[in-house]
């Protein structure tokens, strides 16, 4: 059955004249509708924001997504093998491919009730945390560009290159790895990887401090970001925000700790939350600093994981054709750099998944955007979009 698509006119929440000055008077201006995107430097991809502005003040934002929709879920249903879905997961959140692979692999492993060897668990943690640093580096770097600071962006990309080099020596690819497989890894890390990873950890700390000096605590930057786009904790939870977006609002929640997977419980590290150091809790600066501090924590985790890396096999004994029981289903969530990345996998007993739903953190985090950007300025909207750290590949899937 094909139903006619219903086109509902866009509702504008604020009426003309509803924006008031600090003294409570209305400002007599007309509204203008501007399209920010789909090709705009600060929408971080092909996102289109339909903005209703009153002067430079935003009355309403209507995000339009789907420009990068590649039918991930449809593709997944048409694979002949569960394993074939992994490369598509890579392409969802293309700046954090390792985490995506792990998320899907974990969901299938839970359905099949497979235990993976300890070396796999440790290597997955190392890869995921390296990827988290790489992803956060892109996030904070591009956020710097949104604020007009170009230099920190190139610094972060310089450091990201080191991580990509590590990935390249591991699996030959620099962006889309297809490394974490169901039941294990595609292959073991090459000799010399552990040393290089250790070297990176000692290299990265001072660079992060340098980055903080030039951007994070810069007076102009703080003034641009503090008290902007405040996302209160209750709204954040209600809109199911996750990751740095949720923690920036002061909610102490991290799936690595609160819904454990992998071997995260074996390491010493802390969940970072926004404390409202320069403004209200949950502002753009808080979301930003959470990412910066998470990178430090990730370095800590990597150091411990590398030190404790056990020897062993990198592939569990799994059937060549994975056929989970008919009717079995699993929703498994992992903490990707952007937040809760969930895969809902349903099986009908055949070799291909019956239904795969990917719950992209950026998709959900973006849905709160209109809530927190009304009444701010266009420049603030740029800051809010930047701090939400969306990857359109994952929003649109």
């Amino acid at each position, binding site marked *: 059955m094909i139903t006619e698509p219903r086109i509902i006119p866009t509702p504008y929440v604020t009426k003309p004249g509803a924006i008031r000055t600090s003294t409570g008077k209305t400002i007599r201006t007309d509204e203008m509708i501007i399209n920010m995107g789909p090709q705009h430097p600060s929408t971080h991809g092909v996102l289109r924001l339909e903005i209703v502005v009153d002067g430079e003040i935003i009355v309403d934002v209507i995000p339009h997504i789907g420009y990068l929709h590649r039918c991930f879920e449809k593709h997944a249903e048409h694979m002949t093998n569960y394993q074939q879905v992994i490369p598509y997961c890579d392409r969802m959140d293309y700046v954090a491919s390792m985490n995506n692979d792990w998320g899907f692999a974990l969901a299938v492993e839970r359905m099949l009730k497979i235990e993976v060897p300890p070396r796999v668990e440790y290597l997955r943690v190392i890869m995921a945390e390296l990827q988290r640093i790489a992803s956060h580096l892109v996030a904070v770097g591009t956020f710097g560009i949104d604020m007009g600071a170009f230099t920190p962006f190139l610094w972060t990309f310089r450091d990201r290159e080191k991580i990509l080099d590590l990935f390249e020596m591991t699996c030959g690819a620099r962006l889309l790895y297809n490394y974490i497989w169901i039941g294990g890894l595609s292959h073991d890390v090459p000799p010399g990887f552990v040393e290089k990873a250790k070297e990176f950890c000692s290299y990265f700390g001072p660079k992060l401090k340098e980055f903080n000096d*030039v951007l994070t605590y810069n007076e102009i930057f703080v003034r641009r970001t503090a008290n902007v786009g405040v996302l209160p904790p209750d709204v954040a939870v209600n809109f199911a925000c996750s990751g740095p977006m949720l923690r920036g609002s002061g909610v102490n929640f991290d799936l690595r700790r609160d819904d454990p997977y992998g071997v995260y419980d074996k390491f010493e590290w802390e969940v970072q939350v926004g404390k409202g150091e320069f403004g209200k809790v949950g502002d753009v600066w808080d979301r930003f600093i959470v990412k910066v501090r998470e990178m430090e924590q990730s370095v800590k985790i990597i150091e411990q994981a590398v030190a404790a890396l056990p020897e062993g096999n990198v592939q569990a004994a799994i059937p060549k054709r994975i056929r989970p029981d008919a009717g079995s289903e699993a929703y498994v969530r992992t903490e990707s750099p952007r937040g809760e990345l969930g895969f809902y996998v349903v099986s009908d007993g055949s070799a291909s998944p019956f239904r795969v739903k990917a719950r992209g953190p950026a998709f959900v985090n973006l849905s709160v955007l209109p809530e927190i950007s009304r009444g701010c*300025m266009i420049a603030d909207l740029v800051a809010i979009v930047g701090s939400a750290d969306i990857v359109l590949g994952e929003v649109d899937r």
Partner: protein
Amino acid sequence: MQEYLIGLVGEPLVAYVLMAVVPLVFILVYALVTLYMEMKVAAHIQDRVAYMRTGWHGVLQPFADILKLLQKEDIIPAQADRLLFTAAPFFVFVGTYVGFAAIPFSSGYVGADLNLGILYIVAVSSIVVAGLLMSGWASNNKWALLGSLRSAAQIVSYEIPSALAILVAVMIAGSLNLNEVSKFQEGGIFNWVVFGGPGPVVTKLLLTPFTLTAFFVLLTAGIAEANRTPFDLPEAESELVQGFNTEYSGMKFAMFYLAEYANMFLVSAITVCLFLGGWQSPFGSFMSGPYWGAFWLIAKGMFFVFVQVWMRWTLPRLRVDQLMHVSWKVMVPFMFVCIFAVGLILVW
């Protein structure tokens, strides 16, 4: 110089044209140098190497860039106002270029030795504002319009603190003629207006805090008027795409670029002439004279151009309300206090 040229070529008209061409040649050469410098400085700040292939360390790259810009297709959007769209870059460039007429490059070369030199520069810069508005409106693009309105509002706002800061130097030097102001600061670095100008030590000490404030205000306001970071809101690429020059390409875009670079030097040169001795040598009579004068002015000017480049690649950008706040609620009151104090000290 004028008389010399008239004597040389015989025909006054030709001499005047030659006089007018000298700054243009200077701007073109300077723009190439600055283009190279900006890219290299940016690269070193950002931990990379920039141009390395064309010529030794890529010195020929600016020429290649200019050639590339000149060859590019000149696109005029279908909905644009063709006449104004074409005219705008010229207004913007001319507004900056005519300002160079009053800059004393050395004791021997001033394009036009105007009695009201500095006032003239401030006045002609308003042509730039009109040109920017023209470009934004003619592009028929909302982002461009927003950018040009922002830009105009910014330049108009920052003209006030900069004019007040200029007034401080003018009050001390007692002239609006930039050449006279430069002459006034004779006798080494401590006779510069930024240190209170030549005069008794007590007056100098009293004046220095105010002149220093005025100097920094003038420099900051100058950067704002040149639309450079951290005041580059009109072309803030993260918000307004490219602001008023979003729709421009090829030669016209090059024109905006040239105007921006020329403006960077112009504001630096004004600051230098008013507060840092203009063409005067910092060592008194050592290394002074007409030729050294040109060297000193350009060297000092280039230093501040370098400062602007340095700031651009280091600082984030202000928000539009913060920008206005800085101008109206911080700089203007400070400058009023400075003018009042300087007036009192001078009369006393």
